[in-house]
């Protein structure tokens, strides 16, 4: 099954179960969780069902396209269901069946793996899902996001698309994955891996990055002062990515690293706070549109 066919099937599957299938967010993200379609929408009482692919950039994981398992940018298939349905495990397993897996032929397990993202003020409990020993999905019940308790609780399914595809295609090297007949992962992304890793690890100007971090931070703060939550959050995401670049560049000491992280955390918490106030002021519009 090709990479794009996996995506198409997951889209179909989750669309049929009432999810809005939205497009990837257009700011650099380290994880699907950071998209406003997750980070903001899981806050507050409004129901939410969404599915999307999110390209995720992790500069420190870049290996110049030379490592068969690690890449600067990978793809997550992200599903958020809020409130978490009672049959969510069964739903998830059905989605694997939709990918052509006969689960009786395999060993599928839910193995404890709790999730924490201090910069998002977020944590949750759940599992990594094993398929014949391979971790293919992070399955998390969000307990807190942006420092706020999640009420109701949202469940997040984050499929590692490269892992799923490698398993289905029986491929050892991520670059050998078939995206669509005649086109491999290598054709599409290898050059990007080389360039982005080179930039992140060698070429990026730490001075400029530091300036950018501070500019985005100031701008996020300014936007929040005017309750422009989404533009502010974009700046927070850019801060976070800029931080990741500095981290990959290996130019931060321990103290500086901790200090910058704390600044991102403050901003993301404030964003969550303003977002919640705004939704409340709007009378939680989605409470009217869905029935719980």
């Amino acid at each position, binding site marked *: 099954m090709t990479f794009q066919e996996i995506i198409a099937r997951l889209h179909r599957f989750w669309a049929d179960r009432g999810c809005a299938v939205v497009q990837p967010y257009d700011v650099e993200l380290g994880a699907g969780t950071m998209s406003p379609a997750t980070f903001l929408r899981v806050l507050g009482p409004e129901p939410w069902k969404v599915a999307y692919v999110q390209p995720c950039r992790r500069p420190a994981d870049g290996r110049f396209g030379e490592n068969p398992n690690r890449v600067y940018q990978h793809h997550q298939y992200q599903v958020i269901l809020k409130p978490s349905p009672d049959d969510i495990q069964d739903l998830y397993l059905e989605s694997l069946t939709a990918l052509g897996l006969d689960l*009786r032929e395999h*060993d599928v397990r839910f193995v404890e793996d709790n999730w924490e993202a201090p910069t998002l003020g977020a944590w949750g409990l759940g599992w990594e899902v094993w398929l014949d020993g391979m971790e293919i999905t992070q399955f998390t*019940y969000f307990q807190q996001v942006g420092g706020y308790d999640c009420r109701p609780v949202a469940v997040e399914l984050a499929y590692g698309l490269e892992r799923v595809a490698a398993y289905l295609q029986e491929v050892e090297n991520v670059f050998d994955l078939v995206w669509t007949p005649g086109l491999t992962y290598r054709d599409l992304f290898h050059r990007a891996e080389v360039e982005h890793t080179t930039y992140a690890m060698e070429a990026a100007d730490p001075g400029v990055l530091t300036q950018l971090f501070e500019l985005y931070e100031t701008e996020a703060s300014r936007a929040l002062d005017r309750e422009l939550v989404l533009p502010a959050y974009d700046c927070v995401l850019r801060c976070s990515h800029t931080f990741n670049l500095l981290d990959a560049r290996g130019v931060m000491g321990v103290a500086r690293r901790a200090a910058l992280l704390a600044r991102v955390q403050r901003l993301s918490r404030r964003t969550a706070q303003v977002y919640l106030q705004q939704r409340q002021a709007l009378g939680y519009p989605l409470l009217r549109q869905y029935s719980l």
Partner: protein
Amino acid sequence: MAESRIRDLLLEVGTEEIPARLLDELLEQLAAQAAVHLAAARLDHGSLRVMGTPRRLVLLVEGLAARQRDAVTEVKGPPVGVAFDRDGNPTAAARGFARNQGVRIDELEVRAGYLYVVRREPGRPAVQVLTEVLPATVTALEFARPMRWGVGETRFIRPIRWVLALLDDELVRFELVGVWSDRYTRGHRFLAPGPHEVESAQQYPAVMRRACVIVDPAERRRMVRRRVEAAARREQGRVVWVPGLLDEVNNLVEHPTAVVGGYDPDYLDLPREVLVTVMRHHQRCFPVEDAAGKLLPRFVAVRCGGRRGLDTVARGNAWVLRARLADARFFYQEDCREPLDALLERLQSMSFGEGLGTVRDRVHRIVALTAHLARELGMDERERKVALRAAELCKADLATRMVYEYPELAGVMGCEYARRSGEDPAVARAIYEHCLPRTAEDDPPASRPGAAVGLADRVDALVAFFRAGLEASGSQDPFGQRRLAHGVVRLLAGPLGGIRLDGLLSRAIELHAEATDRQVADRLTDFLLVRFRSLLADEGLRPDVVEAVLAAGHDPLSRALARARALERFRSTPAFADLLATNIRVVGLAGRARPDRSPDPGSLSEPAELDLYRAFTALRDRARSLLADGRYEECWSVLAGLRPAVDAFFDGVLVMAPDPTVRDNRLALLAEIAALINAAADLGRLSGEGQPGKEPPSVQRNRR
């Protein structure tokens, strides 16, 4: 009557997957809570069992009474003489009592001369009471990190998805966290999902067999072990039973089936620990070795399910393992590019913890503290050099890729890389050893350099946490401080015996603060003594022996341990009774002695006191030197010989003489004897054998 017979109770709480490491403890809690709640509900029962899998907690109670015991409460009122007048009419007292209790006078009962209100609450049927008892039992379970789900506010370890509750064949109907109990269970997720109806509690085992779920953890564990062993045998090998892995695997499956896979023999070049760790860490696989103990390129995984698709499962696991081994080999090769000491620089930018400084700072302190220990232990030049070099390199492997990926390989990789970097093999070994003991089952290190570095490392870490106010308390133990403390007391009681704790802590705190911090030292000492007490208890030493010994001082711990062992042995000798009797007679009055006085032989006049003084001085020096040599039992035997002289003294002499000089002199003599008897252990703390500070009866009689 049908309700008078006894019945069997079954409760199954179906959940989403419970973390493997928590299941055993949860089942213990369930058993304890069930016993408590059944007793409180006056429901008598026979055997009570718990069982469970990742997806279910099961309680089975046999011989449960069909009804609660009747409750009888009695309230005592006024005496009959006050309650009725001469003519037998109730007085105001009787009327008031009845009114307050809300009963009529003629409902009062007379027992043993008093009025009573006796209320009998007839027991309700068990099936009714259980609708309250069962949910209360389950919601009483406690978790370190409970979770909420859906729209509910209830917290549990993982979401509850079904509840099965039967009393024989009768449904016990109640709501638990929004789920109504029913007579259905679910089977293995893929082999027999169900739901399956359970007709009666007695039918449950048969239903679960058909549902392909091995509910009993002990039975499942035997099955996992047998199947893994058989699989390894088929590969002409034997299983490497990695500690803790069998229990973990057991709690990850409902229906275990062993799967064998292989990997490229080229990977056998990697250190054994690396291979074992990779297999365990990611996939909970068991390594396989040959008869000579050499690893074979094989593994045994345990799949949750039957034999269908076994090849696919084996292929998948092998595929994942191959990728992990390729990673490990990459890390190993990268790490080997630089000598170990070149990595020290990188520790500069590695934080030990928020606000706790860098690992490089810590290494400097560990080296300094190791130097202190080398001096205290009187290490020779060669041993000292090994210890200091090992101290300097002991954390270098934290900067390696392998340890970054597999933190449990810290120490192991340091040793491996030190050897490859051409360090002295003794240094490499000491780096390995400084992490020992890792668990309570591990032995402490054999070499003194390894032990010294390990002690310095742990003490420094504990001081850092205590100074930062991060010390463990209750269920909170960030950074595994109890384990660190356990290591400290094991080392001080074993290979580093003789080292004084107070000097060690002062030095360790100085290295952090350039000044002593008494408060940190005291709190840390208390924390370590808690671990020391449990170490002594694990040895089978009785709590009162431990307290008696610690009351006479804990430092050095190795001496305290020796005193405790000696006292435990001495306790079963005939001389023990003599010593104790002697002690009981002297300690009470000894407490009244003036602290600045020592006995003056010139002021002794009565024969019995002169005899006691002579008897005591004749053995005093010998007892003291036995004490100094750590020959405690002999010391106590010698002191027990004082008994006749002490008895004669108390029978013949009035200690509390009217003349203060005479009195103080006698008290001073008793005080000196008491001090020596109790020097190695405060014998008054032995249970049921006299208490300190209380005058025993014989002394009081004498004073009269």
